[in-house]
């Protein structure tokens, strides 16, 4: 059976553009959350976000792509280029049908489309951009990455709220295992920090008015939205070896997606089953898992539910748990993939990044939350979780890979 390995990472995160910038910020506890600068948010019920500051799209993209891309697509294209460069991938040297693109998206090109809505309704239809038909839709990042890097294999764009990014990695893994491709560029990108996008994010009911995102804390009152992209190169291990790859970050050993029962159902939530299915696919026993990168919703009911699933699988305080996303805010479809990047770097460096902002974890949660400072440990297997509003659950198992 095909082994699928990560050979390239690309990150544009609120606390660091570039993989190592993000990673050092994460270990040092540097936060990307601050007052919004993208627009005047003073009249809105929440005013802090994980905003990518100082991002100059012209430094990363050819001029012709600037008028046709939303901010989220610029993040996606930048992260994809970083990932391919990091993986030493020369698309021209590989068979084009062997390389696919599978990304997740939650909001589409929202700021871009907000501007086009405004032009349509304030000036008229003839003022709408010739790029609106594709700059908005959810498939845009898959298409743009494919075109820029000449990747002609299987393509897909998934929407599963904040779980879609991990799902995308799982779909990439399946495509490799079916033999449809040898290499897939995968991950997620999202941004909606325009006034309408921001208000719409608030309307979901999970954003902290305080601007404080404290996963698993007794005082948790919601999350802080962020923006950014995490794109990874996932590759058939034999193919990677064949093209002389010298550095493999780790293996995507298993991934599973489940969905919660309808609201009001007496049936149990399905996060635990996603964990169990992903572990089973990886052939990994719970005792072999060294760290969990939790979804960490930052709302007591949801945190309690996640803690319960972890207790049921690993036992109380059975495994270190962390949430580096407290420093970036929740990146929606990019959140799961960014946690996978963090997990792979944890495995590489033998260190678990801490959960910032959380001081007081209720004892009944029964979780060993890594707080305050990085924790050094021998790590070979990590579990990454993501959940999406509506009932989406996704779990991925990554582990070290020996050539």
């Amino acid at each position, binding site marked *: 059976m095909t082994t699928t390995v990560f050979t390239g990472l690309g990150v544009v995160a609120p606390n660091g553009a570039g993989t190592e910038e993000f990673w050092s910020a994460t270990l040092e506890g540097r936060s990307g959350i601050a007052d919004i600068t993208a627009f005047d948010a003073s009249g809105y019920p929440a005013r802090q976000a994980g905003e990518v500051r100082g991002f100059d799209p012209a430094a990363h993209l050819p001029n012709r792509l600037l008028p046709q891309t939303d901010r989220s697509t610029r993040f996606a294209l930048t992260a994809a280029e970083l990932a391919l460069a990091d993986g030493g991938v020369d698309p021209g040297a590989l068979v084009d049908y062997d390389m696919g693109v599978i990304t997740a998206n939650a909001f589409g090109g929202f700021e871009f489309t907000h501007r086009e809505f405004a032009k349509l309704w304030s000036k008229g239809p003839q003022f709408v951009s010739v790029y609106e038909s594709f700059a908005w839709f959810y498939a845009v990042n898959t298409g*743009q990455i494919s075109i820029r890097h000449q990747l002609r294999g299987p393509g897909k764009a998934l929407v599963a709220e904040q779980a879609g990014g991990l799902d995308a990695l799982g779909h990439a893994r399946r495509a490799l295992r079916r033999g449809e491709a040898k290499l897939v560029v995968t991950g997620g990108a999202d941004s909606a920090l325009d006034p309408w996008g921001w208000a719409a994010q608030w309307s979901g009911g999970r954003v902290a008015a305080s601007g404080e995102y404290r996963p698993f804390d007794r005082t948790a009152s919601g999350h802080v939205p962020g923006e950014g992209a995490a794109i990874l190169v996932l590759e058939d291990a034999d193919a990677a070896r064949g093209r002389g790859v010298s550095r493999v970050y780790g293996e995507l050993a298993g991934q599973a997606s489940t969905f919660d029962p309808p609201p009001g159902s007496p049936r149990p939530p399905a996060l635990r089953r996603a964990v169990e299915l992903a572990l089973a696919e990886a052939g990994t026993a719970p005792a072999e898992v060294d760290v969990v990168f939790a979804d960490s919703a930052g709302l007591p009911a949801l945190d309690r539910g996640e803690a319960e699933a972890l207790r049921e699988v690993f036992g109380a305080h059975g495994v270190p748990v962390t949430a580096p996303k407290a420093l970036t805010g929740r990146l929606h479809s990019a959140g799961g993939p960014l946690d996978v990047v963090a997990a792979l770097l944890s495995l590489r460096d033998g260190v678990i990044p801490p959960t910032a902002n959380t001081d007081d974890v209720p004892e009944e949660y029964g979780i060993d939350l890594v707080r305050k400072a990085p924790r050094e440990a021998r790590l070979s297997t990590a579990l990454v979780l993501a959940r999406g509003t509506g009932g989406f659950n996704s779990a991925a198992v990554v582990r070290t890979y020996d050539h």
Partner: protein
Amino acid sequence: MSRRVVITGMGVRAPGGSGTEEFWSLLAAGRTATRRISFFDPTPFRSQLAGECDFDAGAEGLTPREVRRMDRATQFAVVCARDAVSDSRLDFGALDPSRVGVSLGSAVAAATSLEREYLVLSDAGRQWEVDPGYLSPHMYDYLTPGKMPAEVAWTVGAEGPVALVSNGCTSGLDAVGNAVQLIADGTADVMLAGAADTPVTPVVVASFDAIKATTNRNDDPAHASRPFDASRNGFVLAEGAAVFVLEELERARARGATIYAEVSGYATRLNAYHMTGLKTDGREMAEAIRVALDQSRLNADAIDYVNAHGSGTVQNDRHETAAFKRALGDHAYRTPISSIKSMVGHSLGAIGSVEIAACALAMKHNVVPPTANLYRSDPECDLDYVPLTAREQRVDTVLTVGSGFGGFQSAMLLRRPEGVS
């Protein structure tokens, strides 16, 4: 090792009628359902035509609360899902929920609701800053359309993999293809799969106006969608939905299910060329067709009917004709090919599923639906596009294809499993 997957139930909402029977009657008669836009005043727009559905949510059985919380596209998806479940005669209550999943497609999902809420929040476009005091409690579900597959999951109690596949105009094909893969590899036993899009709203009309992708034949709405015709000048935007029950073949046989078709092959490829443009050679679509045939262990000459993407843009119909010739060789000249978009328009992310429904019904009735409005072929489109009139013939194996913005090129093969009449 890989399991076989069959369609055992379907629900369709398309312009020109409500439900599967009316949909098929329209296609078999070669009637068209495109008309002047009635949902808003289209006068300021270049293209003023659409395939609209006369959808009455109450008559469709949706409760007032369901109507309030579901976007129009989600309403379409849920109604089709309920029809598909009923049509399949499968007792979902007896299934293990963890083995049931949902895979839906949509290109622009909640676009209609987004535009409605935008007008309120921006005071009809007067303000760039929005007034949060006017937020709808459902605004978040329009921002990110996870609720569409979620609502369908809730209708059947699905707790397996649930997602929206949003591959633009091939979403309807790719969502079903995704579901087939999940059953084939053992992740799920039963999937609700299909697609819904309700894009007949000013911003979508304007976005296609801007690139002249839609036709401006506003004086003749019923004959405006003209795939493969020499006079074609763009597609007609439409809304629609189709949802299927897919299950593993042996399970379907064991319960004595009525099987519409087996999905025996599916592939998608990216053209890596242009977000809206197509190369003339059809290379990537041909590759997707080749892979789908290979998975089905069929030669091109086994294909009895090709359901074309046939959008009616000048470039699409030539691109696709080239792809058929490249993938099917001489058989491209012998097999009947048609585009139902000539009758029901182009419902973006939904049409791929609506077309799978048309293919399954073509197999059921042994009738090839025609290409309406095709009076004079483009000399560069020189295949048999079944002009104007449906054709009675044996239909056991069907190829359906899709092509969309972003470069997506998809192909699916449907066939009648052995032992099914």
